[in-house]
Protein backbone atom coordinates (compact mmCIF):
# COMPACT_ATOMS: atom_id res chain seq x y z
CA UNK A 1 0.00 0.00 0.00
CA UNK A 2 1.25 3.44 -0.79
CA UNK A 3 -0.11 6.91 -0.34
CA UNK A 4 -1.42 8.63 -3.44
CA UNK A 5 -0.64 12.19 -4.43
CA UNK A 6 -3.02 14.79 -5.75
CA UNK A 7 -2.15 13.95 -9.35
CA UNK A 8 -2.71 10.22 -8.77
CA UNK A 9 -6.15 11.00 -7.44
CA UNK A 10 -6.98 13.24 -10.42
CA UNK A 11 -5.93 10.50 -12.84
CA UNK A 12 -7.85 7.90 -10.85
CA UNK A 13 -11.08 9.89 -11.13
CA UNK A 14 -10.60 10.46 -14.87
CA UNK A 15 -9.82 6.80 -15.46
CA UNK A 16 -12.77 5.67 -13.39
CA UNK A 17 -15.22 7.93 -15.19
CA UNK A 18 -13.89 6.86 -18.58
CA UNK A 19 -14.24 3.16 -17.69
CA UNK A 20 -17.81 3.81 -16.49
CA UNK A 21 -18.60 5.71 -19.69
CA UNK A 22 -17.25 2.83 -21.77
CA UNK A 23 -19.51 0.40 -19.92
CA UNK A 24 -22.54 2.64 -20.48
CA UNK A 25 -21.85 3.46 -24.10
CA UNK A 26 -25.46 4.36 -24.90
CA UNK A 27 -25.16 7.55 -22.84
CA UNK A 28 -22.17 8.74 -24.81
CA UNK A 29 -23.74 7.94 -28.14
CA UNK A 30 -26.98 9.79 -27.38
CA UNK A 31 -25.09 13.06 -26.99
CA UNK A 32 -23.23 12.54 -30.24
CA UNK A 33 -26.28 11.43 -32.22
CA UNK A 34 -28.26 14.39 -30.87
CA UNK A 35 -25.52 16.75 -32.08
CA UNK A 36 -25.44 15.17 -35.54
CA UNK A 37 -29.24 15.23 -35.82
CA UNK A 38 -29.71 18.85 -34.78
CA UNK A 39 -26.99 20.08 -37.10
CA UNK A 40 -28.29 18.01 -40.02
CA UNK A 41 -31.84 19.29 -39.61
CA UNK A 42 -30.85 22.81 -40.58
CA UNK A 43 -29.74 22.23 -44.20
CA UNK A 44 -32.87 20.13 -44.64
CA UNK A 45 -35.14 22.75 -43.13
CA UNK A 46 -33.59 25.89 -44.57
CA UNK A 47 -32.98 24.61 -48.09
CA UNK A 48 -29.86 24.12 -50.19
CA UNK A 49 -28.88 27.73 -50.70
CA UNK A 50 -25.11 27.64 -50.21
CA UNK A 51 -24.57 31.30 -49.35
CA UNK A 52 -27.04 31.22 -46.50
CA UNK A 53 -25.85 27.84 -45.19
CA UNK A 54 -22.25 29.02 -45.13
CA UNK A 55 -23.29 32.11 -43.22
CA UNK A 56 -25.26 30.30 -40.55
CA UNK A 57 -22.93 27.31 -40.20
CA UNK A 58 -20.82 28.52 -37.25
CA UNK A 59 -23.86 29.59 -35.25
CA UNK A 60 -25.74 26.37 -35.87
CA UNK A 61 -22.78 24.15 -35.03
CA UNK A 62 -22.04 26.06 -31.85
CA UNK A 63 -25.62 26.16 -30.63
CA UNK A 64 -25.97 22.44 -31.33
CA UNK A 65 -22.76 21.73 -29.40
CA UNK A 66 -24.07 23.84 -26.52
CA UNK A 67 -27.38 21.95 -26.39
CA UNK A 68 -25.70 18.56 -26.78
CA UNK A 69 -23.35 19.27 -23.89
CA UNK A 70 -26.39 20.09 -21.70
CA UNK A 71 -27.79 16.60 -22.30
CA UNK A 72 -25.14 14.69 -20.39
CA UNK A 73 -24.68 17.23 -17.58
CA UNK A 74 -27.51 15.87 -15.44
CA UNK A 75 -25.62 12.62 -15.05
CA UNK A 76 -22.32 14.25 -14.12
CA UNK A 77 -22.82 13.94 -10.36
CA UNK A 78 -26.23 12.32 -9.93
CA UNK A 79 -25.12 8.68 -10.29
CA UNK A 80 -22.33 9.20 -7.75
CA UNK A 81 -24.73 11.04 -5.48
CA UNK A 82 -27.31 8.25 -5.52
CA UNK A 83 -24.93 5.37 -4.84
CA UNK A 84 -22.94 7.17 -2.17
CA UNK A 85 -19.67 7.55 -4.08
CA UNK A 86 -19.94 11.31 -3.82
CA UNK A 87 -19.88 11.08 -0.02
CA UNK A 88 -16.68 9.10 -0.26
CA UNK A 89 -15.19 11.65 -2.66
CA UNK A 90 -15.86 14.39 -0.13
CA UNK A 91 -13.99 12.38 2.47
CA UNK A 92 -10.97 11.94 0.22
CA UNK A 93 -7.81 13.22 1.87
CA UNK A 94 -7.22 15.56 -1.06
CA UNK A 95 -9.07 18.67 -2.04
CA UNK A 96 -12.54 18.04 -3.46
CA UNK A 97 -11.82 20.63 -6.18
CA UNK A 98 -9.20 18.30 -7.60
CA UNK A 99 -11.65 15.40 -7.81
CA UNK A 100 -14.21 17.71 -9.39
CA UNK A 101 -11.62 18.80 -11.95
CA UNK A 102 -11.08 15.13 -12.76
CA UNK A 103 -14.78 14.59 -13.28
CA UNK A 104 -14.95 17.68 -15.51
CA UNK A 105 -12.03 16.44 -17.59
CA UNK A 106 -13.60 13.01 -18.01
CA UNK A 107 -16.94 14.60 -18.91
CA UNK A 108 -15.27 16.67 -21.60
CA UNK A 109 -13.44 13.68 -23.05
CA UNK A 110 -16.68 11.74 -23.25
CA UNK A 111 -19.12 14.41 -24.37
CA UNK A 112 -17.07 17.37 -25.64
CA UNK A 113 -14.20 15.84 -27.56
CA UNK A 114 -16.41 13.66 -29.80
CA UNK A 115 -18.31 16.81 -30.81
CA UNK A 116 -15.06 18.51 -31.76
CA UNK A 117 -14.05 15.52 -33.87
CA UNK A 118 -17.47 15.28 -35.49
CA UNK A 119 -17.77 19.01 -36.30
CA UNK A 120 -15.63 19.12 -39.48
CA UNK A 121 -17.67 16.34 -41.07
CA UNK A 122 -20.89 18.16 -40.25
CA UNK A 123 -19.41 21.45 -41.41
CA UNK A 124 -19.15 19.98 -44.91
CA UNK A 125 -22.95 19.89 -45.07
CA UNK A 126 -22.81 23.66 -44.84
CA UNK A 127 -20.14 24.01 -47.53
CA UNK A 128 -17.67 25.53 -45.07
CA UNK A 129 -14.17 26.24 -46.37
CA UNK A 130 -11.18 24.30 -45.05
CA UNK A 131 -9.93 27.39 -43.24
CA UNK A 132 -13.28 27.99 -41.59
CA UNK A 133 -13.43 24.34 -40.52
CA UNK A 134 -9.97 24.65 -38.97
CA UNK A 135 -11.01 27.68 -36.95
CA UNK A 136 -14.24 25.96 -35.95
CA UNK A 137 -12.30 23.00 -34.55
CA UNK A 138 -9.87 25.27 -32.77
CA UNK A 139 -12.72 27.25 -31.25
CA UNK A 140 -14.60 24.14 -30.17
CA UNK A 141 -11.41 22.70 -28.71
CA UNK A 142 -11.06 25.78 -26.51
CA UNK A 143 -14.77 26.26 -25.89
CA UNK A 144 -16.21 22.83 -25.12
CA UNK A 145 -14.11 22.36 -21.95
CA UNK A 146 -15.57 25.66 -20.69
CA UNK A 147 -19.06 24.29 -21.33
CA UNK A 148 -18.27 21.17 -19.29
CA UNK A 149 -16.86 23.24 -16.45
CA UNK A 150 -19.69 25.79 -16.30
CA UNK A 151 -22.17 22.95 -16.61
CA UNK A 152 -20.61 21.20 -13.62
CA UNK A 153 -21.51 24.17 -11.41
CA UNK A 154 -25.13 23.91 -12.50
CA UNK A 155 -25.12 20.13 -12.11
CA UNK A 156 -23.79 20.46 -8.56
CA UNK A 157 -26.35 23.11 -7.63
CA UNK A 158 -29.32 21.13 -8.96
CA UNK A 159 -28.16 17.82 -7.47
CA UNK A 160 -31.01 15.83 -5.97
CA UNK A 161 -33.70 18.25 -7.14
CA UNK A 162 -36.79 17.01 -8.94
CA UNK A 163 -36.94 18.35 -12.48
CA UNK A 164 -33.36 19.48 -12.07
CA UNK A 165 -32.60 18.85 -15.74
CA UNK A 166 -34.57 21.82 -17.09
CA UNK A 167 -33.46 24.07 -14.28
CA UNK A 168 -29.88 23.08 -15.01
CA UNK A 169 -30.18 24.23 -18.64
CA UNK A 170 -31.81 27.49 -17.56
CA UNK A 171 -28.96 28.15 -15.13
CA UNK A 172 -26.10 27.20 -17.39
CA UNK A 173 -27.11 28.33 -20.88
CA UNK A 174 -26.95 32.08 -20.13
CA UNK A 175 -23.45 31.61 -18.71
CA UNK A 176 -22.37 29.97 -21.97
CA UNK A 177 -23.30 32.96 -24.13
CA UNK A 178 -19.79 34.49 -24.18
CA UNK A 179 -18.35 31.17 -25.34
CA UNK A 180 -20.94 31.03 -28.11
CA UNK A 181 -20.26 34.60 -29.24
CA UNK A 182 -16.49 34.27 -29.43
CA UNK A 183 -16.54 30.73 -30.81
CA UNK A 184 -18.96 31.48 -33.63
CA UNK A 185 -17.41 34.94 -34.06
CA UNK A 186 -14.00 33.44 -34.82
CA UNK A 187 -15.41 31.42 -37.72
CA UNK A 188 -17.30 34.46 -39.01
CA UNK A 189 -14.11 36.49 -38.83
CA UNK A 190 -12.03 34.09 -40.91
CA UNK A 191 -14.84 33.81 -43.48
CA UNK A 192 -14.85 37.59 -43.93
CA UNK A 193 -11.05 37.73 -44.02
CA UNK A 194 -10.52 39.27 -40.58
CA UNK A 195 -8.12 38.20 -37.86
CA UNK A 196 -9.22 35.43 -35.52
CA UNK A 197 -6.61 36.13 -32.87
CA UNK A 198 -8.80 38.28 -30.65
CA UNK A 199 -11.69 35.81 -30.59
CA UNK A 200 -9.52 32.82 -29.85
CA UNK A 201 -7.47 34.68 -27.23
CA UNK A 202 -10.65 35.61 -25.42
CA UNK A 203 -11.81 32.00 -25.56
CA UNK A 204 -8.43 30.94 -24.19
CA UNK A 205 -8.71 33.50 -21.42
CA UNK A 206 -12.19 32.21 -20.54
CA UNK A 207 -10.81 28.69 -20.46
CA UNK A 208 -8.06 29.65 -18.04
CA UNK A 209 -10.51 31.54 -15.84
CA UNK A 210 -12.88 28.59 -15.82
CA UNK A 211 -10.02 26.20 -14.98
CA UNK A 212 -9.10 28.28 -11.96
CA UNK A 213 -12.54 29.06 -10.55
CA UNK A 214 -15.11 26.47 -11.59
CA UNK A 215 -13.66 23.43 -9.73
CA UNK A 216 -13.68 25.36 -6.48
CA UNK A 217 -17.17 26.77 -7.01
CA UNK A 218 -18.49 23.32 -7.97
CA UNK A 219 -16.91 21.76 -4.88
CA UNK A 220 -18.64 24.37 -2.68
CA UNK A 221 -21.96 23.76 -4.44
CA UNK A 222 -21.58 20.00 -3.88
CA UNK A 223 -20.98 20.53 -0.17
CA UNK A 224 -24.17 22.59 0.02
CA UNK A 225 -26.12 19.92 -1.88
CA UNK A 226 -24.92 17.23 0.53
CA UNK A 227 -26.23 18.96 3.66
Amino acid at each position, binding site marked *: *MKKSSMLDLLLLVIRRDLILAMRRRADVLTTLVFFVMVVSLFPLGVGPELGMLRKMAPGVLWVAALLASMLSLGRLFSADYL*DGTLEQMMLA*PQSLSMLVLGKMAAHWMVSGLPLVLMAPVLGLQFDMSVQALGVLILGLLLGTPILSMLGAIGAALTLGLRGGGVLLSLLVLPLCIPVLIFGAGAVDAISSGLSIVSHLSLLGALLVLALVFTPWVTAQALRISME
Partner: protein
Amino acid sequence: MLEVSNLACSRGDHRLFSGLSFNLQPGQIMQVQGVNGSGKTSLLRTLCGFLRPDEGDIIWRGESIRELDEDYYAEMLYLGHLNAIKDELSALENLCISAGLSGVELEEKEAMIALRRMGLRGREMLPTKVLSQGQRRRVALARLLVSDATFWILDEPLTALDVGAVGLIQELIGEHLAQQGMVIFTTHQPLHVAGTEMRTVSLS
Protein backbone atom coordinates in the same frame (compact mmCIF):
# COMPACT_ATOMS: atom_id res chain seq x y z
CA MET B 1 -8.31 12.05 20.42
CA LEU B 2 -11.94 12.79 19.49
CA GLU B 3 -13.82 15.21 21.67
CA VAL B 4 -17.39 16.23 21.02
CA SER B 5 -18.60 19.09 23.13
CA ASN B 6 -22.10 20.44 23.54
CA LEU B 7 -23.15 19.34 20.04
CA ALA B 8 -26.60 20.30 18.77
CA CYS B 9 -28.07 19.31 15.47
CA SER B 10 -31.40 19.86 13.75
CA ARG B 11 -32.99 18.87 10.46
CA GLY B 12 -35.31 21.57 9.22
CA ASP B 13 -37.11 22.98 12.26
CA HIS B 14 -36.83 19.78 14.21
CA ARG B 15 -34.14 19.70 16.89
CA LEU B 16 -32.65 16.20 16.90
CA PHE B 17 -30.32 16.46 19.87
CA SER B 18 -28.55 19.14 21.83
CA GLY B 19 -25.94 19.40 24.52
CA LEU B 20 -24.31 16.16 23.40
CA SER B 21 -20.78 15.67 24.75
CA PHE B 22 -18.53 12.64 24.71
CA ASN B 23 -14.99 11.70 23.92
CA LEU B 24 -13.32 8.72 22.36
CA GLN B 25 -9.77 7.52 22.92
CA PRO B 26 -7.62 5.07 20.92
CA GLY B 27 -8.76 1.49 21.46
CA GLN B 28 -12.29 2.50 22.38
CA ILE B 29 -15.56 1.68 20.70
CA MET B 30 -18.82 3.54 21.04
CA GLN B 31 -22.32 2.62 20.01
CA VAL B 32 -24.85 5.33 19.20
CA GLN B 33 -28.25 4.24 20.45
CA GLY B 34 -31.67 5.65 19.78
CA VAL B 35 -34.99 4.91 18.15
CA ASN B 36 -35.61 5.48 14.44
CA GLY B 37 -35.44 9.16 13.61
CA SER B 38 -33.57 10.10 16.77
CA GLY B 39 -30.63 11.44 14.78
CA LYS B 40 -28.10 8.60 14.81
CA THR B 41 -27.23 8.99 11.16
CA SER B 42 -27.24 12.78 11.49
CA LEU B 43 -24.76 12.52 14.35
CA LEU B 44 -22.46 10.31 12.29
CA ARG B 45 -22.78 12.58 9.26
CA THR B 46 -21.95 15.56 11.48
CA LEU B 47 -18.85 13.70 12.64
CA CYS B 48 -17.93 13.31 8.95
CA GLY B 49 -18.33 17.02 8.38
CA PHE B 50 -21.23 16.66 5.92
CA LEU B 51 -23.59 18.47 8.26
CA ARG B 52 -22.74 21.63 10.10
CA PRO B 53 -23.72 21.42 13.76
CA ASP B 54 -26.01 24.17 15.07
CA GLU B 55 -23.91 24.46 18.19
CA GLY B 56 -20.85 22.86 19.66
CA ASP B 57 -17.66 21.59 18.17
CA ILE B 58 -15.94 18.39 17.15
CA ILE B 59 -12.28 18.31 18.08
CA TRP B 60 -9.82 15.84 16.58
CA ARG B 61 -6.29 15.78 18.05
CA GLY B 62 -6.91 19.20 19.60
CA GLU B 63 -8.21 20.93 16.48
CA SER B 64 -11.69 21.46 15.09
CA ILE B 65 -12.48 19.15 12.16
CA ARG B 66 -13.71 22.19 10.22
CA GLU B 67 -10.17 23.50 10.17
CA LEU B 68 -8.43 20.17 9.76
CA ASP B 69 -10.49 19.17 6.73
CA GLU B 70 -8.28 16.92 4.61
CA ASP B 71 -5.91 16.01 7.44
CA TYR B 72 -8.88 14.65 9.36
CA TYR B 73 -10.28 12.83 6.33
CA ALA B 74 -6.95 11.05 5.87
CA GLU B 75 -7.45 9.45 9.28
CA MET B 76 -11.11 8.52 9.14
CA LEU B 77 -13.24 6.07 7.24
CA TYR B 78 -16.98 6.41 6.83
CA LEU B 79 -19.29 3.63 5.77
CA GLY B 80 -22.83 4.85 5.31
CA HIS B 81 -26.16 3.36 4.32
CA LEU B 82 -25.10 3.62 0.70
CA ASN B 83 -22.48 1.16 -0.42
CA ALA B 84 -20.68 3.55 -2.78
CA ILE B 85 -20.07 0.78 -5.27
CA LYS B 86 -20.75 0.92 -8.98
CA ASP B 87 -22.92 -1.72 -10.61
CA GLU B 88 -20.90 -1.67 -13.82
CA LEU B 89 -17.57 -2.32 -12.13
CA SER B 90 -16.33 -5.62 -10.76
CA ALA B 91 -15.85 -6.13 -7.03
CA LEU B 92 -12.10 -5.86 -7.56
CA GLU B 93 -12.32 -2.58 -9.51
CA ASN B 94 -14.74 -1.17 -6.96
CA LEU B 95 -12.43 -1.93 -4.07
CA CYS B 96 -9.32 -0.57 -5.82
CA ILE B 97 -11.11 2.64 -6.77
CA SER B 98 -12.66 3.29 -3.38
CA ALA B 99 -9.30 2.63 -1.72
CA GLY B 100 -7.76 5.03 -4.24
CA LEU B 101 -10.28 7.72 -3.38
CA SER B 102 -9.40 7.39 0.28
CA GLY B 103 -5.76 7.94 -0.64
CA VAL B 104 -4.44 4.39 -0.57
CA GLU B 105 -3.02 2.92 -3.74
CA LEU B 106 -3.95 -0.71 -3.66
CA GLU B 107 -2.27 -3.52 -5.55
CA GLU B 108 -4.50 -6.05 -7.20
CA LYS B 109 -3.10 -8.84 -5.02
CA GLU B 110 -3.92 -7.04 -1.79
CA ALA B 111 -7.43 -6.32 -3.03
CA MET B 112 -7.94 -9.99 -3.96
CA ILE B 113 -6.84 -11.10 -0.49
CA ALA B 114 -9.24 -8.63 1.13
CA LEU B 115 -12.17 -9.74 -1.02
CA ARG B 116 -11.45 -13.39 -0.32
CA ARG B 117 -11.38 -12.75 3.39
CA MET B 118 -14.80 -11.12 2.99
CA GLY B 119 -16.04 -14.39 1.51
CA LEU B 120 -16.17 -13.28 -2.10
CA ARG B 121 -13.82 -15.88 -3.55
CA GLY B 122 -14.67 -16.51 -7.19
CA ARG B 123 -16.77 -13.35 -7.43
CA GLU B 124 -13.92 -10.84 -7.61
CA MET B 125 -14.25 -10.27 -11.35
CA LEU B 126 -18.05 -10.25 -11.62
CA PRO B 127 -19.80 -6.94 -12.15
CA THR B 128 -21.38 -6.06 -8.80
CA LYS B 129 -24.84 -5.76 -10.35
CA VAL B 130 -25.09 -9.56 -10.44
CA LEU B 131 -24.19 -9.88 -6.75
CA SER B 132 -26.77 -10.15 -3.97
CA GLN B 133 -27.46 -7.34 -1.52
CA GLY B 134 -25.38 -8.99 1.18
CA GLN B 135 -22.48 -9.65 -1.19
CA ARG B 136 -22.51 -6.01 -2.29
CA ARG B 137 -22.38 -4.96 1.33
CA ARG B 138 -19.38 -7.28 1.72
CA VAL B 139 -17.64 -5.53 -1.18
CA ALA B 140 -18.23 -2.20 0.56
CA LEU B 141 -17.04 -3.58 3.90
CA ALA B 142 -13.85 -4.91 2.31
CA ARG B 143 -12.65 -1.32 2.54
CA LEU B 144 -12.22 -1.85 6.27
CA LEU B 145 -9.55 -4.43 5.48
CA VAL B 146 -7.45 -2.25 3.22
CA SER B 147 -7.83 1.06 5.00
CA ASP B 148 -5.18 2.52 7.27
CA ALA B 149 -7.59 4.98 8.89
CA THR B 150 -7.61 5.28 12.66
CA PHE B 151 -11.19 6.34 13.16
CA TRP B 152 -14.03 4.26 11.72
CA ILE B 153 -17.52 5.69 11.47
CA LEU B 154 -19.91 2.86 10.63
CA ASP B 155 -23.59 3.52 9.99
CA GLU B 156 -25.50 0.25 10.29
CA PRO B 157 -22.61 -1.91 9.07
CA LEU B 158 -24.53 -5.14 9.63
CA THR B 159 -27.53 -4.57 7.36
CA ALA B 160 -28.07 -7.39 4.85
CA LEU B 161 -25.24 -9.48 6.29
CA ASP B 162 -25.55 -13.14 7.25
CA VAL B 163 -24.37 -14.61 10.57
CA GLY B 164 -20.95 -15.52 9.21
CA ALA B 165 -20.32 -12.02 7.92
CA VAL B 166 -21.48 -10.45 11.17
CA GLY B 167 -18.91 -12.60 12.99
CA LEU B 168 -16.26 -11.45 10.56
CA ILE B 169 -17.11 -7.78 11.10
CA GLN B 170 -16.91 -8.27 14.87
CA GLU B 171 -13.52 -9.87 14.39
CA LEU B 172 -12.34 -6.96 12.20
CA ILE B 173 -13.50 -4.38 14.71
CA GLY B 174 -11.71 -6.31 17.46
CA GLU B 175 -8.47 -6.30 15.45
CA HIS B 176 -8.84 -2.60 14.71
CA LEU B 177 -9.33 -1.75 18.39
CA ALA B 178 -6.35 -3.90 19.35
CA GLN B 179 -4.24 -1.73 17.03
CA GLN B 180 -5.35 1.38 18.91
CA GLY B 181 -8.08 2.18 16.40
CA MET B 182 -11.34 3.92 17.26
CA VAL B 183 -14.85 2.98 16.19
CA ILE B 184 -18.19 4.70 16.46
CA PHE B 185 -21.21 2.91 15.01
CA THR B 186 -24.94 2.45 15.00
CA THR B 187 -26.75 -0.83 14.72
CA HIS B 188 -30.07 -2.42 15.55
CA GLN B 189 -28.51 -5.87 15.71
CA PRO B 190 -26.42 -7.10 18.62
CA LEU B 191 -22.71 -6.65 18.01
CA HIS B 192 -20.22 -8.12 20.47
CA VAL B 193 -16.56 -7.33 20.41
CA ALA B 194 -14.48 -9.51 22.70
CA GLY B 195 -12.10 -7.90 25.14
CA THR B 196 -13.33 -4.33 25.09
CA GLU B 197 -15.87 -2.36 26.96
CA MET B 198 -18.67 -1.11 24.72
CA ARG B 199 -19.41 2.52 25.47
CA THR B 200 -22.75 3.94 24.46
CA VAL B 201 -24.25 7.31 23.75
CA SER B 202 -28.03 7.56 23.72
CA LEU B 203 -30.07 9.99 21.67
CA SER B 204 -33.61 10.58 22.80
